[in-house]
């Protein structure tokens, strides 16, 4: 026991100490560069629209994760803070005299303040408890405000929502934001600013205490911090950035409707955040990217996209509670040991086969769906760029065979992968 405690204290500590003093700059610089370059790679307006949507979702998901991941508060109604921020911004856009006095890039500040204002009011009573009580209050408030959106027409515009025109703002260095690409850079700038601020927030005393309160609210109270106020401040900060996301939505789409507030939207952001992983700062970023792609791109390919998303989500919760980010970070120890390469071949063998099996299973699902729901005369269907007759036996045999073989190989090679995994995570020379 005692010798365990008296191991040489200097070495590992020194190494890590440097890490905790400085904030890693390289990923941020890379991310900024990437964001700058992207529109030159994907030049189509639709690609830019999708990237705008992605950026907005990222900010929103990061804001949401300030609650879920960092504060341990599960909210079922967070869309209302983004929504109300967005609605406020559209109203500002419609105040001709005022709007022509402020440059468009400053608009998100107003959205943020609005989201923050609402969060202050709601947080005043909802953050007294965490857990189920908080979740249920968030659900109740979310439902209430969503229901108000069709009743209080003066502010929310009813089911049609309200729309404005971003170009009526004061020109910003001559830019009037007529084109998607100009909007892209505005959103990208806000993305970087918001992400950086949220990251920095997590490094402040309050941000650290949010983690402490999440893990053990009682202990935090005995350290001089009121768990309630820590939660409250996190909630308000999260409301601000959600409002910023809402404002950017208003700028990008120039319209806000009931769907920005409803519980479906709140549920989706929970889905995206959890899919990405709540345990790491970059988790929600991954989640938002993947989720937006599924929603806008996969949905062009199959009408069953929500079904697949549901499966992926449930599987994630069951087997990878750390989400995508957790999966990636599982590889860090192996990388530290410089043995990441050893996983390559087993990965290709098992995951490749597994992916083929999944594609086969998806094909079976699509074919079943086509068989059941396509119009009776319509026997031909296209899958993976192949057109065939869904009512003949051959495609079924092929799909079943692909599925079975894919999963079969994956299963066969799984032990080898596990072996390789253990190997890659064991320092050389250490006893196995």
């Amino acid at each position, binding site marked *: 026991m005692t010798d365990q405690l008296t191991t040489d204290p200097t070495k590992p500590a020194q190494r890590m100490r440097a890490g905790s003093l400085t904030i890693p700059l390289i990923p941020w610089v890379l991310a900024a560069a990437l964001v700058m370059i992207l529109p030159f790679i994907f030049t189509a307006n639709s690609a830019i629209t999708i990237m705008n949507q992605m950026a907005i979702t990222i900010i929103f998901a990061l804001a949401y994760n300030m609650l879920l991941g960092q504060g341990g508060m599960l909210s079922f109604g967070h869309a209302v803070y983004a929504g109300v921020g967005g609605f406020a911004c559209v109203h500002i856009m419609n105040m001709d005299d005022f709007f022509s006095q402020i440059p468009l890039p400053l608009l998100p500040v107003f959205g943020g303040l609005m989201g923050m204002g609402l969060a202050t009011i709601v947080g005043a009573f909802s953050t007294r408890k965490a857990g189920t009580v908080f979740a249920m209050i968030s659900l109740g408030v979310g439902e209430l405000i969503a229901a108000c959106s069709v009743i209080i027409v003066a502010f929310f515009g009813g*089911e049609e929502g309200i729309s404005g025109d971003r170009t009526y703002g004061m020109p910003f260095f001559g830019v009037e934001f007529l084109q998607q690409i100009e909007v892209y850079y505005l959103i990208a700038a806000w993305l970087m600013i918001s992400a950086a601020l949220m990251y920095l927030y997590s490094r402040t005393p309050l941000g650290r205490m949010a983690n402490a309160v999440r893990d053990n609210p009682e202990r935090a109270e005995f350290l001089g911090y009121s768990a309630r106020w820590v939660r409250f401040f996190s909630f308000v900060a999260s409301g601000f950035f959600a409002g910023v996301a809402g404002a950017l939505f208003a700028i990008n789409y120039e319209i806000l409707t009931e769907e920005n507030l409803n519980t479906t939207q709140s549920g989706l952001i929970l889905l995206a955040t959890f899919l990405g992983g709540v345990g790491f700062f970059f988790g929600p970023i991954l989640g938002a990217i993947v989720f937006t792609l599924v929603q806008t791109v996969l949905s062009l390919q199959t009408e069953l996209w929500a079904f697949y998303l549901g499966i992926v989500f449930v599987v994630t919760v069951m087997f990878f509670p750390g989400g995508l980010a957790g999966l990636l970070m599982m590889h860090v120890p192996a990388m530290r040991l410089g043995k990441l390469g050893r996983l390559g071949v087993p990965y290709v063998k098992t995951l490749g086969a597994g992916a083929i099996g999944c594609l086969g299973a998806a094909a079976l699902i699509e074919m079943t769906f086509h068989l059941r729901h396509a119009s009776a*005369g319509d026997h031909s269907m296209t899958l993976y760029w192949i057109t065939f007759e869904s009512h003949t036996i051959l495609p079924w045999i092929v799909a079943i065979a692909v599925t079975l073989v894919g999963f079969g190989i994956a299963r066969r090679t799984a032990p080898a992968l596990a072996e390789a995994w253990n190997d890659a995570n064991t320092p050389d020379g250490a006893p196995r």
Partner: protein
Amino acid sequence: MRTTTMLGLTTALTLAASAFAAGADTVKIAFIDPLSGPFAGTGTNGLHQYEFAAEELVNKKGGVLDGDMFEIVAFDNKISPKESLIQLQVAIDQGIRYIAQGNSSGVANALTEAINKHNRRNPDDRVLFLNYSAVDPALTNDKCNFWHFRFDANADIKMDALTDSIVSNDEIEKVYIIGQDYSFGKAVAAAAVRYLGEKAPEIEIVGNELHPIGKVKDFTPYSRKIVASEADAVITGNWGADMVGLGKSVLENGFTGPIYTYYAAADGITAAFGDAGVGSLRLVAEGQLNPPPNDRASEYIKAFKAKYPDGNLSQARITNVIEMLAKAINEAGTADDVVPVAYALAGMEHESLWGGNLMMRESDHQLIQNVHIMEHTNDVVFDHDNSGFGVKVVKTVEMAAADSPTTCEMRRP
């Protein structure tokens, strides 16, 4: 880790932009409506009607111009305004110039605004909006624009016809108005009050109320009130599950008078009412299926049912959209520049497949057409939902509201 993300992003975005190559010999029409989620049934059925109409009415006759074929490209908007705007952008990027949408006035509002802004900001790739179903009167009034054309009769026109029918029925002395609590439900209620007040002030409106949209589990309390009010007729703009829920509950609780509706047919609603709705359900709509207006229409319906046995020819106006668009493109001599096409469409007169004349009013781009009052019955040639029940025309208002006023101030290029 970043590289994997990038890889995924690259593939996905390439996919999104992949269908870039616009075919030289096709005129593409983007169909932006819900194809997944709760309203997918209606959306998919609409898509089939578009595909069938394009094939049957244009492509089989040799296409437009010098043999260009119509192609319907489907986009799933999940009935969300936000998704609709994204898909609109994708469609425009694919070189599509014609946007068809109909489900939800909220989406139509978002689209018409976005298209108006897009056409102003990008004069090189302007698009037209063919609204085939969204009936919010504002779309051809305050919010009208040069790029928007509505092929359905709007809520006011329908209410005009509907109240005509009520007024001509001597047995109706008390009317109950109930609807979903949102813009369309309110518009229906307001129009009903206005027209009844103008046409027959002696008819008493014994109830006028709104209920939350899509949230009501049990309509019994509402039905009780309706029955207790001794109303002779009910007017509602409800659709979907709210229509079935309200209608069934009202009938179950002993109401026997007529229920005037906008959307109580097809999409499972006809089947859900079945025998219970006979003698009560009335529908105001364009497009006559029963009795069949002419042989051509009968053939068309039969061919459609042969191809889509589970489908419903529920939106007859879709054939008008396709035929009139084809005609306009031929008149304009181009499918790429939408401005002459729009000028050709505005003011166009056309004889509908379903009988009667059509006229696209130049002042507000509202199609003027015959509006029918139909009743839910099993005495039909062509049924809905394969249920043996369908709707039959009992009264027709010719060229309804042809001279109705509009507040539209259209700016033309």
